[in-house]
């Protein structure tokens, strides 16, 4: 291997050009063949039973996410101007090509089921906007008397009314959103304010905002990394070549993705993040070594220097890259395809970065020459007590070893704290909570939630498994009714619920002279069947298709939630699930549907996969390390920085209340990637130094001055770069920046303190000599 690498040094130009050409080819492929996948349904494993059922249920009942357009008039909505705005907006939404006419619901389109002494009427609340005072009063009374409308389409304080426009999953685009906003804004007057909210808006905006923000921030991140790297290496050539390694490996990874026709998913934007954090490490270690070598041998030729570089470092570079790649490959165990791809292509990127570090970087040195030796610094350090040239390294090493209990107790304490913090970690599949608290989208959502049942929905599908007419049975509908009331009453977060039972309740009341005591499910199945027939004859039978299947063998119960976060959904699920047994006795199974539920399941799947792969890769890495260093002990010691990093990362998330989401969960991969880099470089150096001395302290100090220095450079560079993201306008990107920086920092501290100490105390590499 070493020979091959050395041989390649003679063909530097060829190597360089070959790499550039391939990079260019990948770049072209990337340009012409890359596509973003923004349809969230495509992210989900299509054959997972929960998704399969949900998709079917969405088809049966036409369950779609709704855009909510709210019209507010502080003076009340029952006046000609507001109602006219409502009618016009409803009509305009109905005319949009993205929206099916029948999928728009508002007070203008809704049916009013009214009862009287002699019969029942189903009619529209209004067609022509009422102008006379009496007519407006009558409308107001009709709305107040109809529980199916009051509090659902008109707020109970009568200052807000909503239009709900359901759209298909793949309809949302930036243009469509702008169109809706401009239609809404055009209707704003002094008294009338229009708001736009709903899951499609939130989901769509997020899918667009996240990558857009990244596009803006990444160049700044790269610039900062460039500057800091330049300060650290004090060499423009070195900086450019090191960044070139990262840059090229990213292009190769994305180029390969494009070449095999895999689209870019939201998690794919994490690939460059990983490659930047991990890829610069090799470059920094190589250049640090090179600097030290030149300082020691000022007269060495560039070839001699490069040969020494490869001799000393090819092994740790290969070891770190292979172990890191294995860590990412373990993500293939995930059920979620975007995560599998993320793991696979990051691993590919890591391996190409390795090749570039060992081929491209030396070729660069051969072509562009060595960095200049720094003379002034080390002279002043000549009298320093200790074994390396660096006072700081010597003192730090001595201190770590002297005050070993600080590290040990500190680490133990941190681990304990982290475990406590980890208990608080919660999973969140919320989309809304990814936005700023004071952003318009969150504020609008809050406003609508204050006035109505909720902007998020959860669909419970009751399934009698093909047995017809089960959902005409009074006992079944009574149970549904009871469950709905139970959930409504017990949970603040559930604003209201809606099912076939509400229709039956309403008709039973209306056909019994509007007496409140009849606002319930009647006792006879025939009665229910006859009510339904009556509704079909006088109302819009399409409405029933949204709550029950044609054969009355499946029922859709919709719960309106005021929050889309996982805690809210899970609290509703807990109460609903307590009815599982009761429904089972009736031969009915419970299933869920809808996008809120799907993303909950999806997040769980991601996490499950992530934890699984974390464990697998952790074990694999211990085994690989043990094999590479031919010592089980080293395998365990080397895994300490990873362990510490992972623990602290999750612990801090718990304490700060940062929920695990699809992106934050992936960050644990960084812990592995970086932790392993630091550990391997440090151990390898320590091992080499130990071979040359009997003095453990000396070996440790020299390693600190060399590897420790590279590690701290690496940490500083990446931390500086990712701290830029803390100023992002998009909260998930901020969390990402902070957590990457944190992981870098803890890996760095962990390696140089507790791992160093364990290495020192284990007496490994010194045993024979002591005898």
């Amino acid at each position, binding site marked *: 291997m070493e020979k091959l690498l050395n041989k390649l040094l003679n063909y530097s130009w060829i190597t360089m050009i070959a790499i550039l050409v391939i990079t260019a080819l990948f770049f072209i492929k990337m340009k012409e063949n890359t596509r973003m996948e923004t349809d969230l349904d495509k992210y989900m494993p299509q054959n997972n039973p929960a998704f399969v059922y949900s998709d079917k249920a969405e088809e049966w009942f036409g369950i779609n996410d709704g855009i909510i357009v709210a019209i507010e008039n502080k003076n009340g909505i029952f006046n000609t101007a507001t109602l006219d705005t409502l009618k016009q907006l409803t009509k305009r939404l109905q005319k949009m090509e993205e929206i099916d006419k029948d999928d728009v619901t508002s007070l203008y389109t809704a049916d009013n089921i009214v009862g009287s002494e002699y*019969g029942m009427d189903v009619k529209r609340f209004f067609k022509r906007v009422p102008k006379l005072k009496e007519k407006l009063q009558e409308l107001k009374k009709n709305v107040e008397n109809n529980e199916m409308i009051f509090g659902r389409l008109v707020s109970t304080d009568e200052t807000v009314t909503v239009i709900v426009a359901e759209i298909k999953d793949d309809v949302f685009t930036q243009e469509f959103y702008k169109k809706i906003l401009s239609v809404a804004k055009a209707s704003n007057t002094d008294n009338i304010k229009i708001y736009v909210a709903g899951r499609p808006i939130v989901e769509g905006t997020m899918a667009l905002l996240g990558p857009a923000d990244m596009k803006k921030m990444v160049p700044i991140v790269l610039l900062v990394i460039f500057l800091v790297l330049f300060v650290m290496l004090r060499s423009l050539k070195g900086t450019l070549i090191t960044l070139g390694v990262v840059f090229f490996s990213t292009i190769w990874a994305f180029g390969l993705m494009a070449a095999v026709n895999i689209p870019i998913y939201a998690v794919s934007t994490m690939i460059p993040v990983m490659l930047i954090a991990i890829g610069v490490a090799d470059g920094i270690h190589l250049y640090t070594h090179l600097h030290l070598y030149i300082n020691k041998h000022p007269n060495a030729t560039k070839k001699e220097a490069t040969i020494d570089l490869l001799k000393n470092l090819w092994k740790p570079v290969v070891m770190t890259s292979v172990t890191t790649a294995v860590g990412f490959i373990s993500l293939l165990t995930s059920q979620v395809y975007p995560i599998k791809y993320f793991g696979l292509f990051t691993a590919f990127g890591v391996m190409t970065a390795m090749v570039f570090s060992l081929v491209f970087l030396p070729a660069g040195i051969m072509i562009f020459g060595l960095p200049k030796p720094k003379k002034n610094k080390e002279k002043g350090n000549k009298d320093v007590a200790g074994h390396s040239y660096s006072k700081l390294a010597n003192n730090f090493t001595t201190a770590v070893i002297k005050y070993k209990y600080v590290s040990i107790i500190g680490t133990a304490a941190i681990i304990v704290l982290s475990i406590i913090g980890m208990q608080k970690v919660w999973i969140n599949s919320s989309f809304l909570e990814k936005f700023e608290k004071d952003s318009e989208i969150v504020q609008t959502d809050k406003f609508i939630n204050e006035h109505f049942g909720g902007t998020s929905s959860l669909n419970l599908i009751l399934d009698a498994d093909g047995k017809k007419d089960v959902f005409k049975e009074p006992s079944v509908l009574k149970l549904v009714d009871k469950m709905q009331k139970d959930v409504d009453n017990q949970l603040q977060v559930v604003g209201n619920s809606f099912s076939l039972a509400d229709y039956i309740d309403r008709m039973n009341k209306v056909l019994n002279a509007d007496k409140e005591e009849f606002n319930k499910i009647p006792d*006879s199945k025939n009665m229910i*069947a006859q009510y339904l027939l009556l509704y079909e*004859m*006088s109302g*819009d039978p399409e409405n029933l298709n949204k709550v029950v299947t*044609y054969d009355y063998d499946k029922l859709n119960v919709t719960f309106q939630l005021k929050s889309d976060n996982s805690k809210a959904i899970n609290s509703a699920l807990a109460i609903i699930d307590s009815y599982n047994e009761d429904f089972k006795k009736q031969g009915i199974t419970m299933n869920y549907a809808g996008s809120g539920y799907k993303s909950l399941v999806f997040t769980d799947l991601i996490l499950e996969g992530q934890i699984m792969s974390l464990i697998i890769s952790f074990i694999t890495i211990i085994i690989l390390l043990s094999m590479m260093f031919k010592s089980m002990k080293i395998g365990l010691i080397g895994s300490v920085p990873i362990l510490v990093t992972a623990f602290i990362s999750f612990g801090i998330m718990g304490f700060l209340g940062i929920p695990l989401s699809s992106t934050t969960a992936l960050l644990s991969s960084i812990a592995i990637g970086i932790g392993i880099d630091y550990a391997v470089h440090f151990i390898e150096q320590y091992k080499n130094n130990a071979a040359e001395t009997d003095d453990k302290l000396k070996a440790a100090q020299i390693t600190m001055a060399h590897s420790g220095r590279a590690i701290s450079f690496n940490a500083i560079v990446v931390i500086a770069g990712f701290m830029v993201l803390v100023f992002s306008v998009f909260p998930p990107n901020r969390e990402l920046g902070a957590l990457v920086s944190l992981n870098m920092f803890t890996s760095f501290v962990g390696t140089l303190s507790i791992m160093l100490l364990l290495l020192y105390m284990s007496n490994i590499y010194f045993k024979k000599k002591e005898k």
Partner: protein
Amino acid sequence: MKRLQIKSVLVAIIFAIGLSPAVSGQSLTGKQIVDKAYNRATGDDQTSNLTMTLINKSGSQRVRKIKQFQKDFGKVDKRIMFFLTPADVKNTSFMSWSYDDDSKNDDQWIYLPALKKTKRISSDSKSDYFMGSDFTYDDLGDRNLDDDTHKLLREENINGEACYVVESVSKDEDYMYSKTITWIRKDNFVGVKKEFYDEDEELLKILTIKKVEKISGFWIITHSEMKNVQKNHQTSMILSNVQINSGVSASKFTERIMMRGL
């Protein structure tokens, strides 16, 4: 405003005009053709068994069997229907009186045996669908000849029958159909096919006449299908045991009879 002249559960335009010879050789205008189709002799009363099958887009069916009586009283058409199946709505009955006078709303009653009460129901729109079917009340009733502008588009053969193809464009812009296109047989002025276009002038529904029988000297359509192509939902109506002018008693159309049942 509301006028429901239901002369048959089937579309009114399909009633036979009897044996009047086709006005051959002399070309008819669109309006004249439609007029002849609208004003075919219908008989004074009809008794029949109706099987109405609703089929939704996933192929699920709801089948209803109904015994119905109807009688033309001149200024008012009265109809009464009794559900035979499904069992849970058996003996539910429905009665409607529709008036020739445009300004007079239809009267409709329903008797729910489980409730043991007759209830008046009212819907304020002629575009309401009849019992969850794809037929609106309007499709089933007569439409006033002057509500539309009729134009003879062409003449063509359909299923071996020579037909006029007439386009009828609604004069009222708010009407649920912007236009309809009807294929009317030249020999007897019975409709064969009709296309309904929605407010946006897109095809909404297609009515196909499957079977026409001559009963007691009248052309009666005994099997028709209405398909909503936008919703992929369809309704088939089949008549059996059709009796025309059998002397249905005028006293049949009362709330008392609704409650008593067949």
